[in-house]
């Protein structure tokens, strides 16, 4: 197939049947379909991937229509090509047909492998379900292992069980620590005048999440300008300077060291983000962002990290950082949650991932002019006051309320009945009414009959009622809620219930396989029928084996199951007869003249 293609010069491309068609050149190979119109100015050039072609239709040779080949793609588009003569069209069509078939096969193979792949996870799920539910396990053992049903069929009706479990199994995301680890106090060693900071990946993640400027600096400086160790040393020097509250020293060092200055001045990226957020606040109602979100410029109390207040000269204002700012930023980051799932030890990877995430969210949030306009429109719509607006005359659809009597009368009109002579009926009715009226007159005259009821009759009634009630009590049980099942010995009860569930399962698969259209269904139905006959005989055996006083009740219980099975057998036999009759349909039976 490689390299094979079909080319055709005199082809016209029509986008619909009415379109006169643009003449051009068509080439189809196994990857692509290309149509180039002869006229370079027309713009109906078409380029399709052949794997998108779903089906093809063509006009017949003998008909009066011109030779057309109609291709439909998976995207739902139709393309019609008109050829010069039928043989050309046929070659193209055959080629396309072969392509479509070969496309389907790998798709099918892909689908089946993907189902196999899915199953590995599903297998575990199924196994777990089976372990938990012993009833299910019993059914599974009975049917799937005796090859009556396949695995897929068995689980096909239980998608709900599988689906719900898989949702439960989805991993929960770990959140961030609410403790501010990035503000760890270092251990100081007074003797050697050294300050040691601890750095773990968790701390690094928090630092990058809370301080985008540090992250940006990391990406910029490491490894080009300095090593990671140097970077962190500088960072912690800045932290130390903050903690000493010596803003003069901080200013001095910032002036010297450019990189250090990055850590010491306020976070520019953060400020930019908050400014943007505030700009986008919906004036009608938006509790998400307001001035208070800009915590880097808050009017705070001047409380430093360790709780002391300090007064500072204005020019060194930027070198101080307050507790409020840090807390707010940390809280905001914790509430956002862990935005990336990267578990890597590599700091750079973490930094880049975070930057990517922030960029994506920024791109989403970026408001273009159109988006702005749309937002303003939406706001004006939402904030509109109803009584100031013009009256909206919605088109009304008339109610069509039907007279409910029609429904009942239409039901009456379809009665099928024993036909009776009309006149005869009328006479009957008239006579009957006459008799009735006579009775009423009679009782008005004579009053209630005396004695109302003979004592023997009364006694008989009493005894028969007593008998009925006591036998019913024995059979059904004292408690009206209690059913006969509970009075059976446990093994019998379990057996009956199990038969019931297995019969349900079998019947469900049986009835869903009809009408039989493929040989697969045919074999499936055959297997199911054998299993059902098996169960039927088991039911009979159970009826025999049970104790004699319970036998009648058990047979009553079992009767509907057997009736359902009988109905299924009948249907099977009738269908089989119909099939054999059909397959012998063409032949005339012997002896037919």
């Amino acid at each position, binding site marked *: 197939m490689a390299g094979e293609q079909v080319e055709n010069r005199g082809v016209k491309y029509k986008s619909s049947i009415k379109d006169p068609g643009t003449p051009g050149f068509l080439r189809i190979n196994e990857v692509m379909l290309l149509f180039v119109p002869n006229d370079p100015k027309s713009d109906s050039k078409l380029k399709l991937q052949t794997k998108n072609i779903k089906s093809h239709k063509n006009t017949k040779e003998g008909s009066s229509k011109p030779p057309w080949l109609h291709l439909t793609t998976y995207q739902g588009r139709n393309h019609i090509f008109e050829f010069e003569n039928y043989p050309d069209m046929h070659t193209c069509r055959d080629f396309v047909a072969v392509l479509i078939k070969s496309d389907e096969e790998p798709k099918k193979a892909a689908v089946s492998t993907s189902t196999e792949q899915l199953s590995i996870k599903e297998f575990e799920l199924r196994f777990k379900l089976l372990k938990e539910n012993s009833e299910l396990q019993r059914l599974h053992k009975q049917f799937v292992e005796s090859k009556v049903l396949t695995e897929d069929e068995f689980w096909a009706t239980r998608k709900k069980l599988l689906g719900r479990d898989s949702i439960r199994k989805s991993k929960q995301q770990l959140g961030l620590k609410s403790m501010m680890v990035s503000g760890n106090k270092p251990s100081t060693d007074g003797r050697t005048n050294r300050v040691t900071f601890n750095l773990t990946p968790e701390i690094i993640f928090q630092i990058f999440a809370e301080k985008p400027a540090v992250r940006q600096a990391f990406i910029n400086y490491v490894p080009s300008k300095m090593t990671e160790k140097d970077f962190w040393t500088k960072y912690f020097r800045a932290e130390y300077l903050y903690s000493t509250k010596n803003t003069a020293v901080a200013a001095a060092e910032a002036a010297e060291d450019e990189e250090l200055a990055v850590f010491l001045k306020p976070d520019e990226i953060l400020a930019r983000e908050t400014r943007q957020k505030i700009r986008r606040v919906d004036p009608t109602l938006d509790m998400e962002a307001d001035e208070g979100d800009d915590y880097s410029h808050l009017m705070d109390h001047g409380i430093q990290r360790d709780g002391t207040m300090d007064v500072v000269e204005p020019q060194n204002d930027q070198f101080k950082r307050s507790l409020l700012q840090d807390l707010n930023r940390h809280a905001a980051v914790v509430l956002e949650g862990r935005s990336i799932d990267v578990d890597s030890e590599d700091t750079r990877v973490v930094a880049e991932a975070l930057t990517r995430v922030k960029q994506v969210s920024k791109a989403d949030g970026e408001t273009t002019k159109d988006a702005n306009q749309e937002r303003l429109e939406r706001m004006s719509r939402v904030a509109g006051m109803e009584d100031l607006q013009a009256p909206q005359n919605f088109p009304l659809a008339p109610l069509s309320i039907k007279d409910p009597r029609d*429904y*009942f009368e*239409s*039901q*009456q009109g*379809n*009665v*099928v*009945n024993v*036909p*009776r002579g*009309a*006149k005869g*009926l*009328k006479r*009957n*009715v*008239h*006579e*009957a*009414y006459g*008799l*009735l*009226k006579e*009775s*009423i*007159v*009679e*009782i*008005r*005259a*004579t*009053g*209630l*009959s005396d004695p*109302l*009821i*003979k004592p023997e*009759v*009364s006694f*008989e*009634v*009493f005894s*028969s*009622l007593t008998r*009925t*009630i006591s036998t*019913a*009590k024995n*059979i*059904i049980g004292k408690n*009206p809620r209690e059913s006969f099942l509970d009075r059976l010995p446990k093994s019998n009860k379990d057996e009956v219930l199990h038969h019931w569930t297995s019969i349900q399962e079998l019947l469900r698969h049986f009835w869903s396989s*009809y*009408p*039989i*259209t493929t040989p697969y269904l045919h074999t499936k139905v055959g297997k199911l029928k054998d299993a059902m006959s098996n169960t039927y005989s088991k039911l009979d055996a159970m009826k025999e084996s049970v104790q004699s006083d319970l036998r009648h009740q058990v047979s*009553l219980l079992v009767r509907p199951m057997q009736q359902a099975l009988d*109905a299924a057998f009948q249907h099977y036999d009738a269908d089989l007869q119909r099939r054999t009759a*059909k397959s012998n*349909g063409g032949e005339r039976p012997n002896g037919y003249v």
Partner: protein
Amino acid sequence: MPSVAFKQYSDDVSLLVLLLDTNPLFWSNTSITFSQFLSHVLAFLNAVLGLNQLNQVIVIATGYSSCDYIYDSSLTSNHGNFERSGTGMPPLFASLLKKLEDFVTKDEELSREEGHEDRTPSCLLSGSLSMALCYIQRVFRSGHLHPQPRILCLQGSPDGPEQYVAVMNSIFSAQRLMVPIDSCYIGVQNSAFLQQASYITGGVHHTPKQLDGLFQYLTTIFATDLHSRGFVQLPKPIGVDFRASCFCHKKTIDMGYICSVCLSIFCEHHKKCSTCGSVFGQSKLDEASSVSDKKRKAPHT
């Protein structure tokens, strides 16, 4: 005084709505005559009224073409001294009988008017059930101090399958209102409607074997009020006939087709549901037969 009334209201005050079958086609050929039947029933009503001072009885006659309220024990006009038409008739029921006679006359006229209709000789159970439920609903809304209502259906006519939908609707309403429907069937065949009604609403269904002991049956089984049924053993039927009738031909069927939207029952395949109008998809059977037809055509052309 409201406090006295409250004290008098014990647990076993009942409101009995009796649906009396007055279908002439049934009564023209039974072993028991209508007058004997009436005397049993009237004595039973008297007994119910005697059980508790606050008991109430309503009688609704179920005719061939119509239904009507015949008697209401809570109306005071009954207690007056009505014209003494006969020797033995207690004045309590004289008005009942008068109204019954008027009703039968009216029913006859109606059936004559609507001409002959080939329908089963059934009584209009759906109509009388609806009337009973309306009355009970009114009682419920009269205040929170009211007797406990129940419906007793005394019927001998067979079921009219054309009334299946209406009867089932009434039964479900009764179930909702928690009103038990007792049924005493004195006819020949079995009534599936009444069995289902009693089963679903928690009432008692019984088919008396001896019709001349009808009074004994009525007082033993159907006179118990709802409170006492908790500790009185009443006869229970072993099985219930749950067959439905199809909506298209009103035949009683065991297996059929059901619309998945409105649950209407049909005995044969339809293209469209006649109740809710939803269109059914093409049946697989049709598809299979049409496909096989196409296949058969090919070798012949």
